[in-house]
């Protein structure tokens, strides 16, 4: 998902992609600022996860699941719950992914998706407090890629948002110093939604939602998290060391804002199917 510049891509594949871009085309027929079709299926782990979603972005697919646990608050934030996103690059998803402890790019994936959720203050963590200083809800959203054909970040961001939006968990309260269920079912207190849009820079071209072969020839990529108010809530330049001009960053934000509308409404539509 990140930097495949060390992987061998044949000169023919590389030149083919670039010669197409010179004609304003991409190898899968999309426009430069066009996303692949997004499919979101929610509630795929209904018996064990409090929220879940399977997302397909062309031939990339990921599954995300949410667990809501009760835990101790951090000492410096006694009245706040917390949200954490993790992701791993399971070797199931691609012949390029290694077995073993997560490499830098897997950690980057998890952290970038995590920042997209956290920095937008998607979740009102104050509302995740059960009892000040004692009990809070901790929300874990974990992502597993199933098929990797480029742009894991955006697919993961969509999956995490869809899983969070459809999470349902029993409300807890403290009674006689013990935790009991109130009988109510809660949703995650979402105040905003931010989705990540990744733009690859190939030569002088900016292409959104790159497929694997495009990632292999990209000079760099820029991931931009855009929220419902068209604010940027997180950014990450990665996937190669090529520089970006100010103008390219501005153009990328333009593309990201445009695409974020469709993505956010796709997530909201999918979330409606869970009561």
């Amino acid at each position, binding site marked *: 998902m990140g930097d495949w510049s060390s992987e*061998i*891509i*044949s*000169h*023919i*594949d*590389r*030149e*083919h992609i670039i010669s*197409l871009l010179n*004609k304003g*085309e991409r190898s899968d027929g999309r426009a430069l600022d066009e996303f692949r079709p997004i499919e979101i299926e929610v509630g795929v782990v209904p018996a064990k996860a409090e929220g879940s979603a399977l997302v397909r972005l062309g031939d990339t697919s990921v599954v995300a699941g949410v667990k809501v646990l009760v835990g101790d608050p951090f000492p410096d934030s006694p009245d706040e719950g917390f949200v954490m996103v993790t992701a791993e690059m399971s070797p199931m998803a691609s012949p390029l992914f290694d077995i073993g402890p997560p490499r830098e790019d897997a950690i980057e994936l998890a952290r970038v998706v995590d920042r997209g959720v956290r920095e937008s203050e998607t979740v009102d963590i104050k509302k995740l407090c059960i009892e000040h200083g004692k009990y809070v809800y901790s929300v874990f959203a974990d992502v597993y890629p199933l098929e990797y054909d480029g742009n894991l970040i955006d697919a993961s961001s969509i999956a995490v948002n869809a899983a969070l939006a459809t999470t349902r968990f029993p409300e807890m309260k403290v009674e006689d110093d013990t935790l009991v269920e109130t009988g109510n079912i809660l949703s995650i207190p979402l105040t905003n939604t931010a989705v990540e849009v990744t733009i690859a820079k190939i030569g002088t071209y900016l292409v959104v939602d790159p497929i694997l072969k495009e990632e292999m020839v990209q000079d760099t990529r820029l991931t931009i998290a855009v929220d419902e108010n068209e604010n940027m809530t997180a950014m990450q330049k990665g996937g190669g060391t090529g520089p970006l001009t100010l103008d390219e960053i501005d153009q990328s934000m333009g593309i990201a804002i445009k695409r974020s509308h469709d993505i956010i409404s796709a997530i909201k539509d999918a979330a409606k199917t869970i009561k």
Partner: protein
Amino acid sequence: MAIFFSKREIVIPGQLLAEGRFRPSMGTYEQEGKVYSAVVGLAELRGNTVKVVPLQGVYIPREGDFVIGTITVVAGNNWKVDIGGPYLASLHANNALRRPYDDDISRYMSTGDVISAEVIAFDRNTGPFLSMKGRGLRKLEGGMLVKISPAKIPRVIGLRGSMINMIKDLLRIHAFVGQNGIIWIRSRDLEIQKLAVKAFKMIEAEAHTSNLTDRVNEMLKNALAEIKGSSSSEKPEVKGDDVTERSPDEKGAIVSEGGDVPGSDMEDTSETSPENEEAVATPESEEPVVELETSEEKDGTSDELEIPENESESKEVNEE
């Protein structure tokens, strides 16, 4: 003596195919006088030989195979070539270059270059060895690569090249079909190139169905008519491919057998490699994939330096 499958039946591993005096061949195994399938594939009886043509599987090299690969490593006098499958192939400079050649062979071909080559030796312990001495064996430039399942390649070629020749004639493209599932195509017209990709993907998806050549032909003709209709003023230029262009300073050292004028050589249909067509036309010559009953070991060329010199060596002087 009994046969337990019908003609062209899709069988699966463990399925009983025959009992009695049958010879188990490719894709099958024998146990206590019974022949079973070892793979998902199409069962076939020829004489008393039972075989299963696999519908899936990674590329396993065979001597004489025409393959297309990407150079991934340059190591001493060898290029390591990714041709798919479990074993990285070796191409020794002696099997690609005219002597004397520079010690630094990356001057001629390097990482990322795509070549067409022939498998000259293979056993499963030392990996395949390639040669570029022969017709149509060279560094490939321009165009694009299409990857399909190696198990579907015979269908892309067709009986004595019928499928690939039909596609090439209709679209007037250049195409090399590697037994390892890589197809190289080149056309000046982007739309035509896309159409070729569509045809190959269609063959891959429908490989186990009948009348495929006719259906591919129909699809292409309809699509061509549409392209022509939509750009009546600007007819797509499909003739006069530039595939034969060579810049001597860059490629002059790469052997093209016999020093033929490379251009004229490339025009005919031999691009699918004569060896392949032969193998395709005579399925009996195939070796069993699963050789339980006749586990014949080939002599391994364990030392790369022992690869016999290609006899085309003497002709190389003519090249220039």
